[in-house]
């Protein structure tokens, strides 16, 4: 081999090395830019959620869009058995305010999200429920004559910019698909009709799900369904809810994500955990106030009874992740009724209010 040939080969080796170094450099720059874009999306959503959290805490009932979010798919998932729920973008979880109870679909597409809050009282103020959804999801509310009132109450408490429509179950045949990215069918007091699944046959099964609400604005149960081609397949056995805020939450959450964990049940249990600690605080407060009043006085009597009711409420929710939902809901309802009556009595006798 001639020396010239060796030289040329060495040159080519050096060119290859230099080229590889430059390629690696630019690959790094591209990766950095891509990560920055993801971080920017995270930041936009985090800032929006921070502002939402502040608004809720200042007492405002929130109903606002979160706009101009860079293109991303936002996921919401709860993990058993701890029922820790997280909002995530690109595989990274966002830190949510732990005092907020969040109801959201398992997948949401940007650029616009909707956020709405309602406060939950049982009977004292416990927490703020935050509902997050996307404008790309179409909500269809199906009702009949017997559920008209409940349907109206639900409609009054939905985010104002929600893509929604109402349809009487008798007109189920008239329902048509509209090339939506996602559809949620809410059956209020009616059985899930396969006409709706059939009309959405062309859509992917994972983009269409339904919830059936049985009950009223105080309590009831919700059952989730997943579209399977042209019919509905049950996703769970039914979960109890208590209060309108939970009922509204059941509309936004879905069970599409996980086979082992019921997202709605997890969020409900988390709200009962919050109730447990708030009730604990009320028990401690009531104990101190009871000691102030003269024993035998009306106010002392009222506070002794209220401590029993508060104790009953605590017993119902002391193990929120293990006790059956129906037992907890029953216990909460009974104790709440008693506390309402005792609070009215306290007002009547000019005693310090229980809550």
């Amino acid at each position: 081999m001639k020396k010239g040939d060796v030289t040329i080969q060495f040159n080519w080796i050096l060119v290859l090395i230099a080229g590889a170094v430059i390629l690696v450099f630019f690959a790094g720059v591209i990766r950095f830019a891509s990560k920055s874009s993801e971080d920017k999306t995270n930041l936009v959503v985090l800032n929006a959620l921070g502002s939402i959290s502040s608004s809720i805490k200042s007492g405002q009932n929130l109903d606002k869009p979160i706009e101009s979010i860079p293109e991303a798919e936002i996921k919401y998932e709860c993990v058993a058995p701890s029922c820790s729920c997280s909002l995530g973008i690109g595989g990274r979880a966002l830190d949510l305010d732990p005092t907020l109870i969040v109801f959201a679909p398992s997948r949401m597409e940007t650029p616009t999200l909707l956020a709405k809050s309602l406060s939950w009282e049982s009977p004292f103020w416990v927490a703020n429920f935050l509902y997050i959804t996307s404008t790309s999801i179409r909500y269809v509310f199906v009702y009949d004559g017997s559920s008209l009132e409940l349907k109206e109450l639900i409609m009054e408490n939905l985010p104002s910019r929600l893509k929604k429509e109402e349809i009487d179950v008798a007109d189920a045949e008239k329902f048509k698909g509209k090339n939506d990215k996602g559809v949620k069918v809410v059956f209020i007091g009616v059985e899930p009709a396969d006409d709706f699944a059939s009309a959405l046959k062309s859509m992917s099964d994972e983009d269409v799900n339904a919830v059936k609400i049985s009950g009223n604005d105080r309590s009831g149960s919700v059952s989730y369904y997943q579209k399977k081609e042209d019919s509905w397949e049950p996703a769970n056995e039914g979960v109890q809810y208590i209060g309108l805020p939970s009922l509204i939450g059941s509309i936004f959450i879905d069970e599409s994500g996980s086979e082992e964990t019921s997202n709605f049940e997890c969020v409900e249990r988390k709200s009962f955990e919050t109730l447990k600690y708030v009730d604990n605080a009320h028990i401690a407060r009531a104990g101190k106030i009871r000691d102030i009043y003269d024993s035998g006085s009306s106010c002392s009597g009222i506070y002794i009874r209220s401590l029993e009711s508060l104790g009953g409420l605590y017993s119902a929710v002391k193990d929120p992740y293990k006790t059956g939902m129906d037992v907890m809901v029953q216990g909460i309802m009974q104790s709440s009724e008693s506390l309402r009556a005792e609070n009215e009595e306290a007002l009547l006798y000019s005693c310090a209010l229980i809550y």
Partner: protein
Amino acid sequence: MRPDLLGIDMKKSQMQLGETMAILLVFMVLVGLGFAFYMRVSKASFEKDLKAQEAELSIQKLQTITHLPELACSSEGVITDNCIDVYKASASAGPEGFFTKNRIYYQKILGYSSITLYQMSPSEGSPQVLYESKKGSNYNVVFLPVILHDPVENSDYYGLLEIATYTK
């Protein structure tokens, strides 16, 4: 082949090799300098953002605390802003308080911070430490004037809430 001719060829290729190496070296040095400068600027900017974020965190903590159902004044379920129920505060304070007894739960909400309540009127009372979970020795302190409501006497006093948020 003549050795002298061979020698000339070798020097030429060596020079070319040297040139290429030198170019690469200069390129690497320039990239390295640029990167070091960028990292320095980024670090300064990042530290500034971090300080702003820590201050914001303290304010957010303040909002969280004044709107906790466990402390906030309420009348038939209606919450009064920037108002703390004196009996709730008393029940939460100290080692027997519910914040301390349920530390694991409240750690998620209140994090590493210290919350102290001072009564300013009608007379200055001794400070009540409502919650304490320390970490390290660096912290930001914010104060908020609050109303202290006594639901038994149905009277209001002035108080000051101090929140020290521990930073890294």
